[in-house]
């Protein structure tokens, strides 16, 4: 018990018998105040700090010289087109207006949608990274976070058949769509992807796409 036993009056007045005060401190106001403060702090605390997804955009050339653009091989390329009301399409290769256009395939943001397609194309890297993570979680392999990151980076680079994803969104797409698709890249451990401008040919392809 919080009792403060004061032996007051011993010296005062020279009384022989010391008077014993048991001074109970009333803690109720203190408790009230504390309750209030706790409630205040509990409500104002932001527990989940915002996370951030890092993305590096290709540098813009001031003079839009097509020669300066890095060349990528067409057979490894998957183009993902995003449109309004959560529509998503993809096609392989290049869409050259002078040649027959590649087939546009409709997909969705669900687990069996675009993710399945991407995983299939990125099998080797995904498997390697998953194996590595498995080994870490079972304790078979001990590695510092930074070296793990480097290792994953190296794994991603090593596969020469890994796809290159070009993400293109039209004006009707929402910001959420872009974040979702970049997130898919992280989930399926795709090494190379870029958000690029959509071409008029591709806009036409979306328009004529099967509903």
């Amino acid at each position, binding site marked *: *018990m*919080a009792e403060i036993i004061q032996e007051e009056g011993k010296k005062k007045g020279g009384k022989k018998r010391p008077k014993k005060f048991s001074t*109970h401190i009333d*803690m*109720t106001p*203190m*408790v009230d105040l*504390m*309750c209030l*403060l*706790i409630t205040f*702090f*509990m409500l*104002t*605390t*932001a527990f*989940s*700090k*915002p*996370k*951030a*997804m*890092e*993305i*590096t*955009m*290709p*540098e*813009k050339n001031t003079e839009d010289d097509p020669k300066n653009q890095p060349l990528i091989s067409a057979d490894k390329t998957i183009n993902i087109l*995003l449109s309004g009301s959560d529509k998503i399409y993809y096609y392989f290769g290049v869409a050259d207006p002078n040649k027959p256009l590649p087939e546009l395939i409709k997909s969705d943001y669900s*687990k069996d949608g675009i*993710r*399945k397609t991407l*995983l299939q194309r990125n*099998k080797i890297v*995904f*498997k390697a990274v*998953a194996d590595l993570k498995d080994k870490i979680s079972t304790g078979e392999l001990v590695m510092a976070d930074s070296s793990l990151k480097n290792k994953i980076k190296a794994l991603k680079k090593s596969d020469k058949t890994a796809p290159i994803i070009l993400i293109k*969104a*039209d*004006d*009707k*797409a*929402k*910001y*959420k*769509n*872009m*974040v*979702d698709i*970049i*997130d898919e890249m*992280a*989930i*399926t451990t795709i090494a190379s992807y870029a958000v690029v401008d959509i071409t008029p040919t591709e806009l036409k392809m979306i328009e004529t796409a099967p509903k």
Partner: protein
Amino acid sequence: MPKIKLPVKTPHIDMTPMVDLFALLLTFFMLTTSFRPQEAAIIDTPNSISEKMTPEKNVITVLIGKDNKVFLNFDNGTDTSVLIRKEVLKKVAEQLGLKFTNKELKTFSTWASFGMPARNIKAWLNTADSKDRDKFQIGMPVDSTDNQLNLWIRFIRLQNQNAEVAIKGDANADFKTVKRVMDILQKNMVNRFNLTTSLQKEEAKLEE
């Protein structure tokens, strides 16, 4: 006759353990709290699996509301002797032919996100009531005829080269607006963005 004194029993509840616990909780919450800065708009960020923390210091945040309004926030930087916000506002004002008093500059350096044409900032800074103040937050002009975001970013980048850029967009903001903001940032040699998201775990499995 002497009065019979009834022994008055006041049931004292021993509050000490309770107080102890409360004190502990209070200390915990006080130490872990980081106050959320007041933002110009309520922004519902999209989800991702990224676990990287948003940088807290030395960051330029471009906020994009669900109605595609653009707001800007930047801090005073790590060097406490220079108030970057103050300097930037001075430069922007100079560029646009506006004048701010020292007091207004000082106020601006302590506030957070804003989104309004620069000519309205003076009135915004001089509004005492926070409700009235919010009426000024109509979004920053980003179109090509009056590209004030570009101006702000340029002067912030001149003042603080090391600042990272975060884009905090609402999930339902148009990609078009985000693209426009990114283009403006890229024009100012910012090629790396932190897209603020909320954490949501996702697993992928390879089918055999």
